[in-house]
C-alpha cells in the first residue's frame, strides 16, 4: 500500500484532465460533441449507481428511477414554471435523493440480494408507469419538450455550450464523491459490503450508511438526469425503461464495481464505443455485446483494475481491483 500514498501527490494532476478537455469542442463535429456530452451525463449516473452496488454491495436496481425523476424534475420545472435550467439542478438532485431514500427502505428492513433486486427494479418500472399516466405534467407516452437551458442568463442552445456546463457539474460530482470515498466513509462501505454484522460490532451505524449512500447516489444520478433532460431536449418514458437500466449496469460492470475511476471509464466506453461500431452497419450491437463480454471475462473487476495496475497514482484507496 506504499504505492497508494506515493500516488496521492500525483493525484492532483488529475485536475489536468478536465482542463485538457476544455478545447475539445474546437475539434469535434456537432455529432461527436453530442456523444461526448452524453458520456458526461453518464458519469454521475454511473457514480451514483456504483456507490450503492459497487461500494456498499447492495443489489439495488432503482437507478433509472432517480435518473428519470431528475430528468422530469428539470423538464417540468423549466417547461411548466419557466425556471431557468440551472435553478432546477438542485431540485433534480433533491428529488433523486428522496427517491434514493425511498428505495433504501426495503434494504433497511433487511431485504437483500435477489429480493432487493426485484423490489428496486419494480420501483423503477413504477416510476415509468407514472410518467406515462401523469400526462398533464409529463406529456404521457408522447413525452414532453424541454425548453432551451439557460445558465445565469446565458442560453445553452448548442451541444458545445452545454458541454462546459456538463463538464463543471461532472467535476463537482467526481470531486465530492472522491473525498467521500477516501474518508472513513469509503472504509465503512467496504466493511459493510464485506460483513455487516462485524461492521455494526465496530460501532458503524449500518442503517445510517445505507440511507446515506442511497440518498447521495440518488441525488447524483438526479443531477445526471437533469443534464440528460437538456441534452436531448425531449423526455419520454421509453428513455427510462429496462434497456436503459441494463446500459447503466453495463457502465459500472465494464468500468469496475466500487471504483470511482471505473464509473467514469465505464460511462465513456459505453457511450462512445457504439458510435465507433456504427461503421459496421447491422453488426454494431453484436460487436458491442461481444466486447462487453470480453471485458468482463478478462477483467472481472472492470477496466479500472487495468488502470490501477498501470501506475500507483491510479490506485483508489478503497477499491481492490
Amino acid at each position, binding site marked *: *500500500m*506504499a504505492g497508494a500514498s506515493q500516488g496521492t501527490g500525483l493525484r492532483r494532476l488529475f485536475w489536468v484532465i478536465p482542463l485538457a478537455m476544455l478545447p475539445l469542442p474546437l475539434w469535434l463535429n456537432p455529432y461527436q460533441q453530442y456523444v461526448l456530452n452524453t458520456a458526461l451525463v453518464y458519469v454521475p449516473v454511473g457514480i451514483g449507481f456504483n456507490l450503492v452496488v459497487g461500494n456498499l454491495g447492495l443489489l439495488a436496481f432503482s437507478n433509472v428511477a432517480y435518473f428519470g425523476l431528475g430528468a422530469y424534475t428539470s423538464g417540468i420545472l423549466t417547461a411548466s414554471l419557466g425556471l431557468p435550467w440551472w435553478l432546477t439542478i438542485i431540485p433534480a438532485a433533491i428529488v433523486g435523493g428522496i427517491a434514493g431514500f425511498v428505495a433504501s427502505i426495503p434494504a433497511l428492513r433487511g431485504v437483500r440480494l435477489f429480493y432487493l433486486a426485484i423490489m428496486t427494479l419494480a420501483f423503477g418500472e413504477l416510476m415509468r408507469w407514472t410518467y406515462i399516466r401523469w400526462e398533464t405534467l409529463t406529456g404521457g407516452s408522447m413525452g414532453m419538450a424541454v425548453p432551451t437551458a439557460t445558465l445565469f442568463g446565458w442560453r445553452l442552445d448548442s451541444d458545445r455550450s452545454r458541454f462546459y456546463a456538463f463538464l463543471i457539474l461532472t467535476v463537482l460530482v467526481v470531486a*465530492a464523491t472522491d*473525498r*467521500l470515498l477516501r*474518508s*472513513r*466513509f469509503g*472504509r*465503512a462501505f*467496504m*466493511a459493510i459490503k*464485506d*460483513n455487516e*454484522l*462485524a*461492521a*455494526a*460490532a*465496530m*460501532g*458503524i*451505524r*449500518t442503517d445510517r450508511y445505507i440511507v*446515506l449512500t442511497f440518498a*447521495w447516489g440518488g441525488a447524483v444520478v438526479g443531477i445526471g438526469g437533469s443534464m440528460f433532460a437538456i441534452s436531448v431536449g425531449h423526455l419520454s418514458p421509453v428513455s427510462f425503461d429496462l434497456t436503459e437500466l441494463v446500459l447503466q449496469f453495463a457502465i459500472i460492470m465494464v468500468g469496475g464495481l466500487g471504483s470511482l475511476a471505473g464509473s467514469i471509464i465505464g460511462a465513456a466506453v459505453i457511450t462512445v464505443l457504439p458510435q465507433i461500431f456504427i461503421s459496421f452497419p447491422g453488426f454494431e450491437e453484436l460487436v458491442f455485446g461481444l466486447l462487453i463480454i470480453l471485458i468482463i471475462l478478462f477483467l472481472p473487476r472492470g477496466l479500472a483494475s487495468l488502470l490501477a495496475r498501470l501506475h500507483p497514482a491510479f490506485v483508489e484507496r*478503497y477499491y*481492490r481491483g
Partner: protein
Amino acid sequence: MADPPLLELRDVTVRFGGLIAVNAVSFRVNKGEICALIGPNGAGKTSLFNAVSGNVIANSGSILFRGEEIRQLTPHEISARGARRTFQNGGLFADLTALENVLVGLHSQVGSRFFGLLFGRRSAAAERDATARARVLLDLMGVGAIADQKAGALSGGQQRIVEIVRALATNPPLLLLDEPAVGLSPPARQQLADVIRRLARERGVGILLIEHAIELVMSVADRVIVLTEGRKVADAPPAEVRADRAVLEAYLGHA
C-alpha cells in the same frame, strides 16, 4: 458504594420460539477478569454472548454494563459504550488490510462528517492520528509487520490477533471473544493466550470468552462458567470446575 461490576447478567433468558436457549442465567465479569464460558454444543453459549453484544435481544432479565441496562440496545450502541466483540468464524474484512481493519475499529473516533467532506472540510488530521494509533496497536500486539497486508491473506493466528486489536482499538473496558482459538496451531494458541492475559493484567480489560479449547480456558481464565441446556451449572475458578461432577456430566452427558 463500590463501583458496579463491569458486566452483570441477572436472570437472562433467551428464547427462540418454543426453545429456551438461555434459561435465567446470572453472573458477573469484573474489571481485569478473564471469564470463560464453556459447555457442550447447544448449551446456549453463543446465544448468551449474542445477547450481551446486542446481536440477539434477550427476552427477559437484565444485562448491566457498568451499571447501565443494555439488554435492548443495538450492536453498534453496545459497541459504542465499550463492550466490543470478535466473531467465531473470523469477522475481519478480508479485502481491507490489517491496518484498515483496525481503522474501521476506530471508526467512531475519526470524526469526519458527511457534509463536511462534501463541502471542503478536510479530515486529514483525524485520519492521520487514527492511522498512527492503529499502527502502534498492531505493533504492541506483535503484528506490526503485517499491517499493510490484506486481512484475507493472513494466517489464522494473525487474523485472530488483528481482530482482537481491532476490537480493542477504542480501549473498550470489556472484550467479548467468541471461540478465538478455533483452527489455530498450538504455538498460535500460546501466542493468543499471552495476548489475552496481557490485556487483562496490564490494561485491566474484562474478558468474556467462549472457548472449546479446554486447555486454553484452564490456562487463562480466572473463572469458568459452565452452561448446559441453557442453565448455569458451575461458576468457579478453573481448578474447582475441573473437579466438579456436574461439569463432567455436562460434557459426558447424563447416564
